[in-house]
């Protein structure tokens, strides 16, 4: 499994959990501002991106841009939906909904990432023969699957 993805997901879960905590317990204002801004502009989108792209690496700028756009879109929809429901748009309701949905999506992303990693491992037919570092780029791929370690290419 991709450890960088894992670390990011742990970070997302931490921020979402802290937002949930901050909804019920008084926290320093600076902390609240940082959590709030990240929850509206970044964290939900990043969680969704990890769920949608469990293994495929996007360019960092693309990932950042997508996280920002998706977070804003998701927050707009969540806020409008909450305000339209009897529960109303309050600090508690928006914190719980945004943080809760982020935790759910992150968990889904986590399991999906594990599943993808396992499937990749099972499908990996590369030979267990070591080869020079300089050759790895060349030998990795479809051609090598056919040729095995005979180096017929």
């Amino acid at each position, binding site marked *: 499994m991709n450890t960088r993805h894992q670390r990011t997901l742990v970070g997302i879960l931490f921020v979402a959990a802290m*937002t949930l905590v901050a909804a019920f317990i008084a926290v320093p*204002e600076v902390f*609240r*501002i940082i*959590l*709030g*801004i990240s*929850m*509206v*502009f970044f964290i939900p989108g990043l969680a*969704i991106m990890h*769920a*949608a*792209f469990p293994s495929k690496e996007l*360019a960092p*700028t*693309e990932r950042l*841009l*997508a996280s*920002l*756009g*998706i977070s*804003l*879109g*998701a*927050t*707009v*929809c*969540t*806020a*409008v939906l909450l*305000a*339209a429901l009897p529960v*109303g*748009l*309050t*600090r508690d309701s*928006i*914190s719980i909904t*945004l943080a809760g949905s982020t935790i759910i999506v992150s968990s889904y992303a986590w399991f999906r990432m594990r599943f993808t990693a396992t499937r990749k491992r099972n499908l990996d037919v590369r030979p267990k023969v070591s080869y020079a570092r300089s050759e790895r780029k060349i030998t990795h791929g479809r051609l090598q699957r056919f040729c095995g370690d005979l180096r017929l290419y």
Partner: protein
Amino acid sequence: VRVQSRTPGQGDTSTFRKGWPPTSSRASSPDRVSTIRPFVPQDGLARLPQALIIHHEEYSTEPSQISHPKTSKTPSRFNFQRTRVTALVVLYMVVGLTLVAVADQTSVRGGNYNEAVILFFAGLIAMFFPTAVRVLAPDVIRQERFTLIILLGLALYAVKIIGSPSSFTFIDEYIHLRNTQNILDTHHLFGLNPLLPTAAYYPGVAAVCASLVDLTGLSPFVSGLLIIGASRLIISACLFLIAEKATKSSVAAAGASLLYAANPMFLFWSSSFSYEDLALPLAAFVIWWIARTRGETDRLIPIITIIVIAAVAVTHHIAAFALSALLGVWWLTERLFRRSNARRRIVGTMALVSGSTSLIWFFFVARPAVSYLFGENILPALQQTAALISGHAKPRHLYSGGGGPAAPEWYMLAGFAAVALIVFTLPPALYRAWSIAFQRDESSLYRNRGVNVALIIAMVVAAAFPVSQLPRLTTQGGAISARSSEYLFTGLGCVLGLLAEKAARPRRTRLRRPYFRAWAWIRTLVIAAVITVILLGEATIASSYTELLPESSNPTGYPWMVQPDVIQASEWAREHLGFNQPIAVGIVDSQALATYGEQDTITASAWPIFLSNTMNSVVVNTIITNKVRYVFVDWRMIDGVPTNPGNYYFSPWEPQSGKYTKPIPAVMLRKFATTDCSRLIYSFGSIQIFDVTRIENGSCIPRTARTAHSGQVAS
């Protein structure tokens, strides 16, 4: 003309054609860029082809003009020289912002306004021109262009923040501030918005602002700035990426982004806390997202797209319709040119989702929007434009709106020059785009890439620009013409960006002429200067001369910005009169009264109450009909004419609207103090609030109304 050449020391032969650049389509692999360049002797005369010496290391400064994200080869090593130049461009941005801040402060302190405006434009040039030169320059990597374009977008956003650093100032900002306050107070949607009832039915920006206020504890002003700042970042980035996909060139994409930044709305209007300024970036994001992920098979991706489309639909009507139309045209164009079904299907599905969501929200939820959009805005503008074309109406005198000081000649000239530059460069740009889109271009840069659907759509959008200038000549259509530029400049940017890329590209047309690399730089400078002129000219179109800079803290005439004493009176009204009291008030003061005072302001239909010399039957009837309980009098009305573009105090439908040459007489405001049916309840500085409840409930009828039309009043 194909020339066979020989590389020294390798012995293999390769071919090249006249023209620049060598492209990846000719290279054997996408990552490998041909860098073949013929050697031209000092005497400037090329020898026979066999005698040519090939230098592969030349052109290495520009890896590829194609610069597709996946295929472009970008230097990974840290380049100190390049970083230094980028830092210099950023420094110019900071200098430009400083000049803008000085200009704003000069205006606020009541200094020479004309000099302040010149300083303001100097600041804009300092920010824009070096950035334009850098991003169009040939030896710049894609990532640097992308970064500089985003920084430029944010710097232009900072111009607006510097102009109003402590509170909102534009009328649209007050409209959405009131929406936000309603949501924060009631926790629910669709609260009454007296400034613009339709805005309450598109609560996207207000809801997200209220969420941010709830989550962070920041003020609505700071939250609004953050939201619009994030939106500015999204639209700057997405437009660059979309233009890059459409034009297949990062230079053209940079040109497109620069031209979009030059649209008249970008500097101030698109920086304001308004629903369109969130919806349009989200719509741009949807386009980029679909283009980026349409090849993916994951089921989550369409769900994500639908979420953002829904966000656009509940945030702004025109942006939602524009998104639906663009997706529909995209699907239709791909259908015409027989693209693969699977990739086309996702675009068609999303067009259907976007169209249906927008229409359902528009007709079933936001019902007042129908009459607002068509009855009050689009149809009158179309009627006036039709009358203008048929010769039944005279064109409006441009730059004459507002009653403030007349704009200097250079100010008007810049506006005309900007439009003329765009109109004159549009035909060759369209021709070039057409050549590329349909593979008619002989240069190999764009060959073998199929019909470019995105470019065809951009051409259609760009071709509408000259038509969009017609409503500008009418009184009702000016706003529509200006606002349409936010959409038209997307296509216009792509098409003109291609022309800019062609012009800025280093090339050698004749082998017999000595290669003079500085020509490329000169062309780049000229193009950057042209785009800068367009930026300055379009800025003059968007803002009237008097409203370009913040108003003086001690205005001499009738102010166009909300004044501190009005805010004070509004807060007094909220504390002492309660919320949502019907108060008749002028258009400028209504913004503060509706937001800081949270009152139910009556403006458009209140003009008969103020614009009468006596408390006659018309005044009384208007008070009774509109259930007006208080009258908010600003004595600065008698000091000067309104300087807003429509040139009116209350409503565009008041009798002297657009024709004020002198302020209203004092007797019109003095009448409230002389009648025995009204009671002065607040007086501070220029502001007075009168209680007219007894007239409203019919318990007291002013003598002047009784004698004149007693029968009419009684009825």
